[in-house]
């Protein structure tokens, strides 16, 4: 089948969206952006195709009334097993890479003991992998780096304590290996992994006989569908160095505008707060950008700001929002220079202000800065759509709602759980349109 690919190379993450001919999202994929944009593009694309398979499975299985109700449950189990397969595979890769590094190099002196310690650590991480992917299992993030990292750190600390092997060395070894592993696209035969996962889920659900046969056939049929990449459009921060030719590139502003329009056709104002940039975009009823504004050469108040604060307080990024939510009286903060954030925090703490009030104040400061960019792009018009990584932060969202309400009255504010894919979605739609325009042009010729 024909598919249309949109790639958004963000400063921190790379996103891919796959559309079918009727503008339905088939799949989404995400990975950390690295210096090598070609690899990031490939990985994100690969992830999106994996995701697309599940969409196709869903379509195949829902076609039959019998399975009806249970499709969702079944597919989520299926996906968990598949992800577990993937996780184990990459974990093995990671272990090999870690140990492979020992040959010569900076760890040579410690080689034997380090190898033992690493092996022990990986045994423990692998042992609990099943739990991570059990129903309701709590994973820190979608990225292998983060999931594996968190578990590795925890176990490495324990192991190093037991064996009195220097913890720092273990971390070092991990830090070096993870970059290599991350830069390798998911390897191996995907179909085989789907089938292994399918076998496990069928076994676990005790589905057998005709029913199992039918499911297997449906899945096989879906796997047989070729996902033909009919057109690809790239966008984003890395756009200038994108591994695509000019006609395959659209500005990120246009992509975000169109993406937001596709999600919410009534959208007129879009705010996107990413890792290093903040964009304010105005779109018309067709999703065409009429005006925009973005920060320039200064990363004040962007997503990374929260990262600095989290680092300073020794907390996870996802814990900041909840902490700020506890505040009743946010402190007033004027400076949003990301680098001085820590100093501002220390300053306020020494003045005796409460942590949650300061953190809430910092969230408000980010939002005010974003609002000033929105203002510069032409103000706020109903409906308002908030996208980008920071839209996941509940405290940022709360402050945004407050500020908008105080200053612009009641508005519809859209926040989509998939909002991080807005730019990629727009790009994919551009790909779809470019393809059909091309086809039309050919038809005419």
């Amino acid at each position, binding site marked *: 089948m024909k598919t249309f690919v949109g790639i958004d190379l963000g400063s921190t993450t790379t996103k891919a969206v796959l559309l079918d001919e009727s503008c339905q999202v088939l799949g989404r994929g995400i990975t950390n952006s690295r210096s090598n944009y070609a690899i990031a593009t490939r990985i994100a694309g690969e992830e999106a195709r994996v995701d697309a398979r599940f969409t196709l499975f869903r379509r195949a299985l829902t076609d039959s009334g019998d399975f009806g109700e249970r499709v969702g449950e079944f597919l989520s189990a299926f996906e968990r097993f598949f992800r577990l397969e993937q996780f184990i595979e990459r974990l093995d890769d990671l272990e090999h890479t870690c140990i492979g590094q020992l040959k010569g190099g900076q760890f040579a002196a410690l080689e034997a003991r380090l190898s033992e310690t690493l092996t022990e650590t990986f045994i423990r991480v692998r042992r609990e992998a099943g739990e991570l992917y059990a129903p309701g299992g709590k994973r820190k993030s979608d990225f292998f780096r983060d999931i594996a990292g968190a578990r590795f750190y925890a176990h490495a600390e324990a192991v190093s304590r037991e064996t009195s092997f220097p913890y720092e060395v273990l971390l070092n070894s991990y830090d070096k290996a993870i970059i290599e592993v991350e830069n390798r696209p998911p390897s191996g035969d995907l179909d085989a992994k789907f089938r292994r996962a399918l076998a496990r889920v069928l076994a676990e659900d005790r589905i057998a006989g005709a029913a199992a046969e039918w499911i297997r056939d449906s899945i096989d049929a879906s796997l047989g569908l070729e996902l033909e990449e009919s057109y690809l459009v790239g966008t984003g921060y890395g756009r200038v160095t994108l591994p695509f030719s000019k006609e395959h590139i659209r500005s990120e502003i246009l992509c975000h505008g169109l993406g937001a329009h596709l999600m919410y056709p009534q959208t007129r104002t879009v705010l996107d707060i990413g890792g290093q940039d903040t964009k304010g975009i105005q779109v018309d009823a067709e999703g065409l950008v009429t005006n925009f504004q973005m920060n320039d*050469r200064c990363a004040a108040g962007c997503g990374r700001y929260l990262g600095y604060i989290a680092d300073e307080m020794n907390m996870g990024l996802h814990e900041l929002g909840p902490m700020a939510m506890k505040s009743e009286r946010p402190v007033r903060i004027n400076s949003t220079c*990301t*680098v001085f954030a*820590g100093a501002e925090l*220390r300053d306020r703490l*020494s003045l005796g202000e409460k942590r949650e009030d300061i953190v809430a104040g910092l969230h408000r400061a980010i939002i005010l800065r974003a609002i000033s960019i929105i203002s510069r792009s032409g103000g706020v018009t109903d409906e308002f759509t908030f996208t980008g990584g920071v839209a996941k932060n509940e405290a940022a969202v709360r402050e945004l709602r407050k500020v908008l309400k105080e200053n612009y009255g009641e508005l519809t504010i859209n926040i989509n759980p998939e909002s991080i894919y807005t730019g990629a979605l727009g790009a994919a739609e551009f790909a779809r349109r470019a393809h059909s325009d091309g086809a039309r042009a050919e038809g005419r010729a």
Partner: protein
Amino acid sequence: MTVTAGIDVGTGAVKAVLLRVEDGKVDWLARSLWRMRQRDPLELARVAFDQTLGEAGLSQREVSYVATTGEGESVPFHTGHFYSMTTHARGAIHLEPETRAVLDIGALHGRAISMDERGKVLNYKMTSQCASGSGQFLENIARYLGIAQDEIGSLSERADNPEVVSSICAVLAETDVINMVSRGISAANIIKGIHLSMASRLVKLLKSIDVRSGVVMVTGGLALDAGLIATLNEEIGNMKGMAATVRAHPDSQFAGAIGAALWGAYRFDRLAARGEMNCAA
């Protein structure tokens, strides 16, 4: 004879010294340094001061003047406060009498100060609000690269092909660094690159206050970073019309505290002479 204390409350650490000053002769009685690590600076000031008293076997009543500097304006037991450019200039002269300029490189700001042989501040300039090229930035990157603070200097000296960080913003520079790591640039070359960009900023600062020759003393925590000192000298060497020498002293981090204590002694004498002060604080 005057016994004075100098307490330097920084953003990264609290430093305290106890000095005895007699007819221009200065004896170092005690010193103390406490890393801040999210603790209350005012409490640490007390702790550091008490530690110096204990070491010297003196009581607070025997100290004629307690001088604070840095962010120590609100230390409750101080006699007087001097601002850090005043004290760093004085402290640096004490450590190295030839000094005519100071580069104080702390966690967030860099300061260039020029002075005469008596420690009178002639001119000074601070880096602007933007934090790129600060100690904090270096610290963050070191943390990211898994490098301990005291390794930084020697690592930088091992660089063979430094990769220069061009972004003006520390955040954007951080991305540059992450990209460098994934391109396989060695930690040594990255650190040296950061040293280079810091040095270029700092040397410009010196130039802007017209320091062109003589001894420039680096004070503050980054004085311990031999790689930065070396880079500063290279940078000066490459600059037309600049002939200054940058040095650090093993006690550089105490320069502020020493300067404060010395100014305290001086002020005490003057006030005592005017009869405005006759007993210790």
